[in-house]
């Protein structure tokens, strides 16, 4: 043994301690490795569960986003894209199709009828709802979740108004008032001032004032323009291009105008005595004029998008028309059957259709984009603008109002 060996291992017994320490270290390493392996496996499983749940939640968020979009503006505006907590989703929509028939005939758009049944036999009727499929797909890396929900909504298809201002009786307009029957965008931009087609479709120029079959011929000549309001209409109706009479047009009740069955709107009628006009009208508002009394009177601004109805459900203009077969003198004398009266619109910008038995006054700076229909066939409907008012025909605004009427119905849901 050299001197160096002696110094390194003087007794030759220290090796035992090193071996023992190594054995203990290896044992502890094995235990630690096993524990670490378990922890990593558990963490991975936990992450798998977590990611699967999160991507599923993102797909649900997409479905809710799509449903809100559908309720707001209908089937337009899709696909809807969004992101939540790092998960992206895209929501698509399409009209559902299926073949319910035997033998099969290729299938058509699925409709939800009022009785809750589905069918494609006869297409979608006026009161049927088109069924749409909302599909939300959420992704993050390799994690994917797809959910599908069917929705439907009643989209009213109102009778096309044939003028910016339609009435069953003569109209007296006055003040700083513009009545423009030419078709405008929902923002009020004139689309085509030269369009003279007038085929009674929605998307074309109309006369400023249209009198219906319940109006007397003399009414046409009695359109009064006091204080020189401006009337613009379709040039087809020369020489007074702003006014026309069409005996094929019949306006009787709001339900008839909106393409519904009589009584369909009874549940939403609100008493004019207690009705409070909201800041913004959305959808269909129906106020009972209270047996000839005034509704929405005073200084109410009318803003929003939808349809505003002021009507006495007992009032039928035909019963008040001496020349009509349904003329009923006792009803004429009974105040319970008197027309409701839209007292005053005082400011605001409204997109859609206003249907009123009678209209007293438009005051302040009012803009109505869409159309106004007056049902009273006896009394002169007097529309006086106390401020600067515009009634601009707009097919786009009417259609937007039709799309905003009733909430969507959720029909079925599944996760794939």
């Amino acid at each position, binding site marked *: 043994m050299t001197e160096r060996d002696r110094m390194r291992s003087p007794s030759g017994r220290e090796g035992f301690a090193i071996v023992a320490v190594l054995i203990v270290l290896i*044992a502890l390493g094995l*235990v630690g490795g096993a524990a670490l392996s*378990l922890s990593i496996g558990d963490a991975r499983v936990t992450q798998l*569960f977590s990611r699967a749940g999160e991507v599923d939640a993102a797909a649900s968020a997409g479905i809710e986003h799509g449903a809100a979009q559908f309720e707001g503006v209908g089937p337009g505006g899709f696909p809807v894209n969004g992101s939540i907590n790092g998960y992206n989703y895209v929501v698509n929509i399409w009209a559902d199709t299926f073949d319910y028939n035997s033998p099969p005939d290729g299938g058509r758009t699925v409709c939800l009828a009022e009785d809750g049944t589905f069918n494609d036999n006869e297409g979608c009727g006026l009161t049927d709802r088109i069924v749409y499929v909302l599909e939300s797909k959420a992704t993050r890396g390799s994690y994917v979740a797809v959910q599908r929900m069917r929705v439907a909504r009643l989209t009213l298809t109102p009778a096309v108004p044939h003028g910016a201002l339609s009435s069953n009786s003569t109209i007296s307009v006055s003040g700083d008032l513009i009545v423009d029957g030419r078709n405008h965008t929902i923002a009020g931009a004139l689309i085509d001032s030269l369009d003279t087609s007038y085929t009674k479709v929605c998307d074309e120029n109309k006369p400023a004032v249209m009198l219906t079959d319940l109006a007397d011929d003399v009414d046409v000549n009695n359109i009064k323009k006091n204080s020189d309001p401006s009337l613009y209409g379709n040039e087809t109706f020369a020489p007074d291009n702003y006014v026309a009479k069409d005996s094929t047009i019949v306006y009787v009740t709001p339900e008839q105008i909106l393409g519904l069955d009589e009584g369909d709107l009874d549940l939403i009628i609100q008493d004019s005595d207690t009705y409070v006009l909201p800041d913004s009208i959305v959808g269909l508002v129906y106020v009972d004029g209270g047996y000839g009394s005034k509704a929405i009177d005073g200084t109410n601004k009318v803003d929003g998008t939808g349809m505003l109805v002021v009507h006495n459900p007992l009032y039928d203009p035909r019963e008040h028309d001496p020349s009509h077969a349904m003329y009923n003198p006792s009803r004429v004398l009974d105040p319970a059957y008197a027309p409701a009266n839209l007292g005053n619109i005082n400011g605001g910008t409204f997109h859609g259709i206003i249907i009123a038995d009678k209209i007293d006054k438009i005051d302040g700076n009012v803009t109505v984009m869409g159309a106004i229909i007056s049902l009273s066939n006896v009394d002169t409907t007097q529309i006086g603008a106390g401020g600067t008012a515009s009634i601009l025909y707009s097919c786009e605004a009417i259609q937007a109002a039709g799309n905003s009427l009733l909430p969507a119905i959720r029909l079925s849901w599944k996760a794939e």
Partner: protein
Amino acid sequence: MRGERGLTLIEMLIAMIILSIMGLAMVGLFRSQHQTVVRQNDGVLATQNARAAVDMLARELRNAGYDPRGSGSAALTAMEADSVAWTADLDEDAAVTSWDPVSDFYEEVAYWHDAVAGELLRAAMPSLGGSAEPVADGVDSLALSYLDRTGTATADSSQVELVRIRLWYSTPDGVQTGAIESQVALRNNIYGE
């Protein structure tokens, strides 16, 4: 010079005895650690199995009653405390007779607890001969509650809007036990009203 003679027999014996004692202690430590690891592993596995089983049941159950064609054939078909079965028109063909094992797509599903075997069983398309397959073992009991809109228990399958799932499990040695709970909103029943 004495230090260079090596170890005496007695020294060797003493060293071996000490090493043996240390070795035995190490073996005991190893066994103890191993048992701990095994138990922890069993506990984790049992928890994961139970959680996976409840998650699988919940994910499938939420499609119950999916009936996009209005055929009326999709619904909860069995509502017991330890079993549930349902149908769903997943392929949207107005019938609930389709399945696709490749994509794990079944329109008729049943889950139930086998108390004897301690297993949660699942059968796909049982009315067409689908056999039971274990989803999880070590399941001590399963308690299903069917609640209506007000949170009240109901036996009317059309009124069920929430199914509460409680599953109790244990490790093979029975030492560790636990419970997993989940609630499933049946949207197809909720939307249908």
